[in-house]
């Protein structure tokens, strides 16, 4: 006994192989079942084609049956009876009989108008013909169509009941329906109605499927329904070839069309329908379908095996894709959250910026007020400096030697008064008297000296008062009353005033100031108070820069100058103070930065003011301990 192959020894492989064999068998079974069904379907399709046409033929037969009934009613109508009643009374066409004839015509017209299929007329023409073959009344198309001979024959052929005839007149063929009309039991005429075959064709013969062609043919043999031609050799149904369904058609080859015939009962017609063979049998032969299905089965089996093997990989890929999709969705969510956060952040920044602007504005206001207060302090300080010596002089005036001189003059007066009797002798002879004159001269000299001293003191006091008045005037000119409006100022004058305001501070620091002011007034339209504050700020900064280094007395210097260049104006303050580190200058303009530990708002204030007037402010320094230069320049429009 031959041993089993190795791969069949593994149970899993054996199961798979068994399943594949079962599946293959099942597919083969399905293919064969399909082939058998297709073959049966071809046969039933042909049978159904025939049956459909038979049903349609029955429907057409029913239609003609109804028409016959209608024609019988018309032939027996009262209008025709009236005509014959009047005729029976002996009335003639000339005197009264025409009225009956008109009645028949009206009835025929009404009949024609009422009998319609949808909107299409069933009849083209209706005549009432008497037994002499004379047309009594007509409705519809007026042309004569039948010869006298034809009419006579027709009257005979349709004497008993309604009938349908095909009348051939030259090349013209018409389907005419006849109905005999009787009066008191005797045949008196015939109603003949020409059918509108276009209406019948449109409603019965025009198929939904344009590939099928139908027509009514004369069917004198009265053959039974059946397939006339086009039966495929391998379709085994009985059909008719010239009547009867007892002979199979021995067709050969591949037919192009299939034609069947079904008699229309009650008429001389048969419905003959021709359809493409592909419509009846289908486009493809079952054998070809069998081959195609088998190929498809093999393809499906192979593909199934392939797909099974691919399935796992696909699942992994699918899982990864799903995971990636999940991540993408997560990223999208986060992006959305970030987008929201960004929007919130922008809003917060806007709000904070707004707050900062408010705070800055508030600080600016406070700085302005502080500057003003500072100016006021400087003014008060200056006034104090002026008033203190004056007070000292006043005190001196209170305690100086005028009282002593007055005392000695009084004693001289009392001596002279005591010796009034011999005043001459006393001053010429008496030693004391002689000294009185000398003493008096000395007192007068002292008095003169005192007077001179008094004058000097008064002048000093007056000078101090004058200085106070000048400071007050200056303060008034830069006071709040000047408001913040722009006005034309002389930069030279403002520089002088600023130096004057800082004069005491400069003096105390023993700083030597040099001025290099531009010739003539340097006009500038600007906020006068704020420019003064800026000048005072910068001069004070220069003064304080001296404090931060132990400079020799001869090295303490501040050089100020004003200038007009290219239509612009400006000033420069150069000190010999502590100077700046490299890169330190820009930082000092930021709020909160200061070399001397203050709020650092002074320079911020100065820069905002200068930039508000489209000017520039630049701090430069050769280096630490080498002094600082601040240069402020305004454009021509300022």
């Amino acid at each position: 006994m031959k041993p089993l192959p190795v791969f069949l020894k593994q149970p899993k492989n054996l199961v798979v192989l068994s399943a594949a064999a079962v599946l293959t068998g099942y597919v083969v079974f399905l293919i064969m079942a399909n082939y058998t069904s297709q073959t049966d379907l071809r046969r039933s399709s042909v049978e159904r084609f025939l049956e459909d046409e038979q049903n349609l033929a029955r429907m057409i037969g029913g239609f003609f049956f109804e028409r016959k009934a209608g024609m019988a009613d018309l032939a027996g109508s009262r209008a025709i009876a009236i005509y014959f009643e009047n005729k029976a009374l002996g009335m003639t066409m000339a005197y009264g009989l025409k009225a009956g004839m008109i009645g028949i015509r009206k009835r025929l017209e009404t009949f024609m108008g009422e009998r319609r299929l949808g909107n299409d007329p069933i009849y083209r023409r209706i005549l009432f013909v008497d037994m002499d073959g004379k047309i009594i009344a007509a409705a519809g198309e007026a042309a004569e169509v039948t010869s006298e001979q034809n009419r006579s024959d027709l009257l005979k052929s349709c004497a008993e009941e309604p009938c349908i005839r095909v009348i051939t007149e030259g090349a013209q063929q018409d389907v005419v329906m006849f109905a005999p009309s009787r009066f008191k039991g005797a045949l008196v005429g015939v109603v003949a109605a020409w059918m509108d075959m276009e209406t019948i064709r449109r409603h019965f013969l025009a198929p939904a499927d344009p590939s099928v062609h139908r027509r009514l043919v004369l069917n004198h043999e009265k053959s039974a329904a059946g397939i006339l031609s086009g039966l495929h050799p391998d379709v085994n149904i009985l059909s008719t070839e010239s009547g009867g369904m007892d002979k199979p058609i021995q067709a050969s080859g591949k037919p192009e069309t299939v034609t069947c015939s079904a008699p229309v009962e009650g008429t001389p017609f048969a419905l003959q329908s021709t359809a493409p063979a592909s419509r009846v049998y289908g486009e493809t032969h079952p054998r070809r379908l069998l081959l195609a299905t088998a190929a498809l089965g093999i393809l499906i089996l192979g593909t199934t095996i392939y797909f099974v093997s691919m399935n796992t990989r696909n699942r992994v890929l699918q899982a990864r894709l799903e995971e990636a999709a999940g991540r993408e969705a997560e990223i999208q969510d986060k992006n959305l959250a970030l987008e929201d956060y960004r929007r919130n952040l922008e809003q917060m920044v806007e709000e904070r910026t707004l707050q900062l602007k408010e705070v800055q504005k508030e600080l600016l206001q406070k700085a302005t007020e502080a500057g003003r207060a500072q100016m006021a302090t400087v003014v008060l300080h200056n006034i104090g400096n002026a008033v203190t010596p004056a007070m000292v002089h006043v005190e001196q005036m209170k305690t100086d030697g005028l009282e002593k001189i007055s005392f000695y003059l009084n004693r001289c007066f009392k001596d002279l008064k005591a010796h009034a009797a011999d005043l001459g002798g006393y001053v010429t002879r008496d030693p004391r008297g002689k000294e009185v004159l000398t003493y008096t001269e000395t007192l007068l000299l002292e008095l003169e000296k005192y007077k001179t001293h008094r004058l000097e003191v008064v002048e000093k006091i007056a000078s101090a008062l004058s200085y106070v008045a000048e400071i007050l005037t200056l303060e008034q000119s830069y006071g709040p009353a000047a408001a913040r409006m722009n006005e034309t100022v002389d930069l030279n004058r403002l520089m002088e005033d600023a130096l004057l305001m800082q004069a005491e501070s400069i003096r105390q620091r023993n700083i030597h100031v040099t001025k290099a002011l531009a010739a003539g007034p340097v006009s500038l339209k600007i906020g006068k108070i704020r420019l003064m504050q800026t000048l005072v700020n910068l001069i004070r900064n220069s003064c304080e820069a001296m404090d931060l280094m132990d400079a020799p007395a001869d090295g303490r210097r501040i050089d100020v100058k004003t200038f007009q260049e290219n239509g612009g104006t400006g000033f420069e303050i150069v000190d010999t103070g502590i100077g700046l580190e490299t890169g330190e200058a820009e930082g000092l303009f930021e709020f909160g930065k200061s070399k001397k530990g203050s709020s650092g708002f002074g320079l911020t204030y100065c820069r905002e003011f200068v930039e508000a007037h489209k000017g520039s402010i630049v701090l430069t320094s050769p280096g630490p301990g080498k002094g600082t230069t601040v240069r402020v320049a305004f454009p021509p429009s300022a």
Partner: protein
Amino acid sequence: MKTNFSKIMTCGGLLIGLFGVAGVTFAGDLADVKQRGVLRHLGVPYANFVTGAGDGMDVELMKGFAGYLGVRYEYVPTSWKDVIGDLTGKKVKAVGEDIEVLGTVPVKGDVIANGLTFLPWRQKIVTYTTPTFPTQIWVMARADSPMTPIQPTGDIGRDISAVKKQLRGRTLLGVANTCLEPSLYRVAETGAVVKMFNGNLNELAPAIINGDAEATLLDVPDALIALEKWPGRVKVIGPLSEEQGMGIAFAKTSPELLAACNRFLDQCRKDGVYLELVRRYYPAVFEYYREFFTNDR
């Protein structure tokens, strides 16, 4: 002698009438109708000219004429006996082809449009428009009458004679003051027993069916309607007159109104309105008098 006496009486009547109407209102001429703003149509229900149901061929013609004049239409019902007096203000009596004026009556209308046949005596008191409808007088008998319809010979005179031969001893209905007045056709000479019918002209056919008489005079429009309404119960024996015409009548004092009506009728014939009315109310008449309508559109 009798004839001379009748003529004298007629002329005398005319003179009395002429004087008698002094102060009596005449039928309005065109200006009066326009001033009054209404056209008064005198009518008697008769065949399909005035049906009595508010329509009729002449009713529609007169409504159109009123519209043509720009005035309101008003139908004034009257009777065959009074219709001439209501138009002219003169009460007259037909005496052969002449008239006898019996007195004056109030004028009630401006126009008679009623299938009024042209008769010689009427033409002496009213004026007609151009003929609007053809007619003829037929003898119609009950279906069971021994009288038999004549066979047309193609000669109207011989046909009339054939009919008159059958009237001897038969009772025959006629209507005074109308085209059915037997004396107009010398019926008395035939030996027929004439009975004057006092009812509506539309009732003549039912009257003979009911046995009031064996036969009646009927004009063609009414005969066609009778044949339609009572088929198999009446029969037409044959003609008693040659072809006649019908028209619209005005008082002789309304020449401008007459001329306006003739213009209106011409317009109706040209634009097809007239023929359409005939088709609607008398479709059968074309079979009998096709020539009459040849010139109409």
